[in-house]
């Protein structure tokens, strides 16, 4: 789980924010696996990069993703 859910000072996440983080963290989980064929691996990398601005813009996560190759 991303460690930064309350940077804006919010005590709770909205339902939308919670869903976004769930998907975002799910993509990171997939990238930790070693059984992804290239079509999955690079699509998920691209998806994680694409989703990052949404969680960053909402103040849910601000982090580097080089460990995920992203």
């Amino acid at each position, binding site marked *: 789980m991303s460690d*930064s859910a309350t940077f*804006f*000072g919010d005590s709770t996440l909205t339902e939308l924010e919670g869903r976004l983080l769930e998907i975002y963290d799910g993509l990171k989980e997939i990238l930790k696996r070693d059984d992804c064929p290239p079509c999955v691996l690079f699509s998920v990398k691209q998806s*994680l990069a694409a989703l990052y601005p949404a969680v960053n*813009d*909402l*103040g849910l996560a601000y982090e*580097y993703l*080089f460990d995920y*190759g992203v």
Partner: protein
Amino acid sequence: MGTDQTYSPYWNPKMELADRATISRWQMHKFQKTLAFAYANSSLWKKKLDDAGVHPSQIRSLEDVRKVPFLTKKEYLDSQEQEPLFGDILAAPIEFVMNYHQTSGTSGRTPLRVADGRRDWSWMVDAWAEGLWALGVRPTDVAYIAFSYGPFIGFWISHYAFEKIGAMTVPGGGQSSEARIRQILDLGVTVVVATPTYGLRLAQTAREMGVDLAKESKVRLTVHAGEPGASIPATKQMMESMWGAKCGDFGGMSECGANFYYSCSERSEGVHLHEDHFLLEVIDPITTEPAPYGQRGELVMTPFGRGSLPAIRYRTGDLVEKMPASACACGRSFDLFRGAIIGRADDMRVIRGVNVFPSAIEDIVRQHDEVDEFQIVFTRQGFQDEVTVNVDLLPHAYATRCNTLAAELSRSLSEAHEGLRINVVAVEPGSLPRFELKSRRIIDKR
């Protein structure tokens, strides 16, 4: 979902409408993480901070940020010359960078190189999209990128930002200006992207083709970046008149990735700082003390999304004047730069005790739409410095009133510069160079 009326006017209302304390808290969080990452991963930053006796853990407030040493363009270039390709500023595993760009290079030096990974590129595109959305770009638009698509980062990011919004995005690379005008008309283009210089050039080309863009095209927005100009009042007015469209100004630079300011859809005297994606400080360039609202100073920026090449407290050399967000009616909480980039610290010349800014000259020259192009030449005659403005007039103006116009311009320029004599010479039409990217209108022969 899907109709224009259902969209929020703000790309990210949570941040764009946040109060100042929230913005500052968010910026501090990002600055701390950016600095810690740079310290851990970039040998240039490890050395710089160690030499300054600063550890990232000591930076706990925006006031503390001033303890962090500046980064200069010279350091950036030196780093890349000493350790090609990207220098010891590089903070990312090279195998994870995927986008390469470079500047055109100046004074025979190696060009400045930048490289971005997937996350960083996605951040840049999102930041551009936020600005375009604020200006009024929507999925129903047809965007035309009048750009050569070379190695300069220029409008590459904007291309993907239009795509992200869902606008039909037309790459206008590798064509003549006439062909581009025909495409703009044929495709029903509603947004045109170009440098300010080239935006005017395109409009002039249309006139020469007998096309009145304001009446015959569907263009409603023009988007400009790459050089100052779109916020110079006379240039902006000329652009809006020739295109019959609202003109937006976006500021970016290769070293920092995304755009750091943008125009919104309101008419205000300024452009919004991208405060959710950058820490933008304004300092007195001599004392390096912070410059308050209303005081002209040098822009120092820290982008929060360029992980591969951390440009922390980067001295841009650009002169700006900050004003509070309340000066714009759009409701955004982000402060503004009055008139965007006012000039460059190294562009200003002192001629016989008078400060001469090329942007101030442009503002006067562009009030005359008979001037197609211009050039500012500094010379030394004996012990005296001289400034001459060469104006390249439209053929009919050159034939009928070149001497009168040159005299009028010389008088206006002199009045705006404490009575300084500024020579104006009308040159043969078409004899001055034209530019698609960054214009080079200043020649210093001293």
